[in-house]
């Protein structure tokens, strides 16, 4: 069986984040909570951020969705933890560029595991799965 094309979407590291999600759960105390869903497909995420002095001290998520949306949420929370808000927002912009298949201006920011999601750009129907958690993060920052 040949699923070469699929392998660009379902990279090992993505499936690892899906199977063993990082930062899954909830936070307590003075936190930001954002609920977001994808009305066309039913995926949903609750993202919680603990922001202190402009730095994301902690991030956790809960939700239900496909492998891409859940893995992306796991990677996103991992990536923004300990980052300055501006850098987290920059990463979100970089991620959007990556999903559109555009050249990503890294500006000294390392996307790490997130690079594995690059293949999603070749599956237009799945881009919204990958961007759900990032949109939640942006909403939290903009409203918080």
């Amino acid at each position, binding site marked *: *069986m040949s*699923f070469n*094309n*699929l392998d660009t*979407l*379902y990279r*090992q590291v993505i*499936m690892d984040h899906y*199977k063993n999600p990082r930062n899954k759960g909830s936070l307590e105390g003075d936190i930001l909570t954002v609920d977001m869903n994808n009305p*066309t*497909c*039913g*995926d*949903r995420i609750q993202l919680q951020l603990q922001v202190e002095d402009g730095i994301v001290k902690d991030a956790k998520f809960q939700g*239900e*969705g*496909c*492998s*891409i949306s859940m893995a992306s949420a796991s990677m996103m929370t991992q990536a923004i933890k300990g980052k300055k808000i501006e850098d987290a927002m920059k990463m979100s912009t970089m991620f959007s560029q990556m999903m559109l298949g555009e050249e990503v201006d890294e500006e000294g920011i390392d996307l790490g595991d997130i690079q594995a999601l690059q293949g999603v750009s070749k*599956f237009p*129907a*799945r881009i919204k*799965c990958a961007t759900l958690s990032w949109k939640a993060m942006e909403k939290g920052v903009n409203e918080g």
Partner: protein
Amino acid sequence: MDVKAIREQFPILNQDVNGHPFVYLDSSATSQKPISVIEAVDNYYRGYNSNVHRGVHTLGTKATEAYEGARDKVRRFIDAESTAEIIFTRGTTTSINTVAYSYARANLQAGDEIVITPMEHHSNIIPWQQAAKATGATLKYIPLQEDGTLSLEDVRQTVTDRTKLVAVTHVSNVLGTVNPIKDIANIAHEHGAVIVVDGAQGAPHIKVDVTDLDCDFYAFSGHKMGAPTGIGVLYGKKKLLEQMEPVEFGGEMIDFVNLYDSTWKELPWKFEGGTPIIAGAIGLGAAIDFLNEIGMDQITAHEQQLAKYAMKQMRTIDGISIFGPEERAALVTFNLDDVHPHDTATVLDAEGIAVRAGHHCAQPLMRWLDVTATARASFYLYNTEEDIDRLVDGLQKTKEYFGNVF
């Protein structure tokens, strides 16, 4: 029924997708279109494109005859008594909203009840939520039985003398349940209520006789039965439509227009404000001709055979959950253990197989099923047992693929 000959009428089926012969199992979302429909629309635009019901020129007359001829084809297709009862709309959603805006808002008040079911598509839920809010009426649900069917006993328990309107789907787009419309209509009428039937998944697949069903309103879409998108039908009993006010006002639907007041055309045109969907209606007429030539009973029989075969073959897959009753229309909604339906649909797509994944515009039903999303394979007259074999094979590969990556 010669499925091979039928398939030749659908050029879209004859292509490779992602390197595999295309298998289309998403007809409940929208059906493919036969050549005769494509040509009917093409002929109209190439040969006699003109506006209808106005002007005296030759092409205008021809367009009007084709448009009104399509209306009569619809009338005969669903055994309505009069073309006055056939309103062309944009689709099922618009048809139901027309009843919700015009009939429900004028005839319901606080203390009245609207009765629907949890298996409805959003387009047969939200118009009634909004009508209930606008009139102060109460929205009630007939509970579903465990297998996703309705029991007439539950219908009798839910519908009361306060019920003014019952809205129910003919066929569930998720469960495949075929509801006993005639019996539900009887119960509604015993209490003086009207019944609105969402026929989006009914009319394309089952012979509908609105007179025999005794439904007050029946709504369906052209694009699920071989016609273009953008054309649909609202059937309503003449005596009800006559007392209803139009929803859209403007050209086409008027009788006399004075400075401060106007009067409406007679039925059905008072509900067709603006230039109508002429090419769509002509396409729908051609689709009806196509279906009639094969025979609705033949189509239903073929689909029943496919549904049974699909249920039998899909059950052989370890870890599959199938939703809905055994007796069903030609669709199977399912999930594979540990594989999200979007992932299933993506792997099937890589195999050239198109299925639907998501909540199917039925979020309350998804919650009743206790899932967030499902995958659905739906069949039509052009599908074959080989298509189902390809699906089953694709699902085995999906399991294998996700089994390997974990």
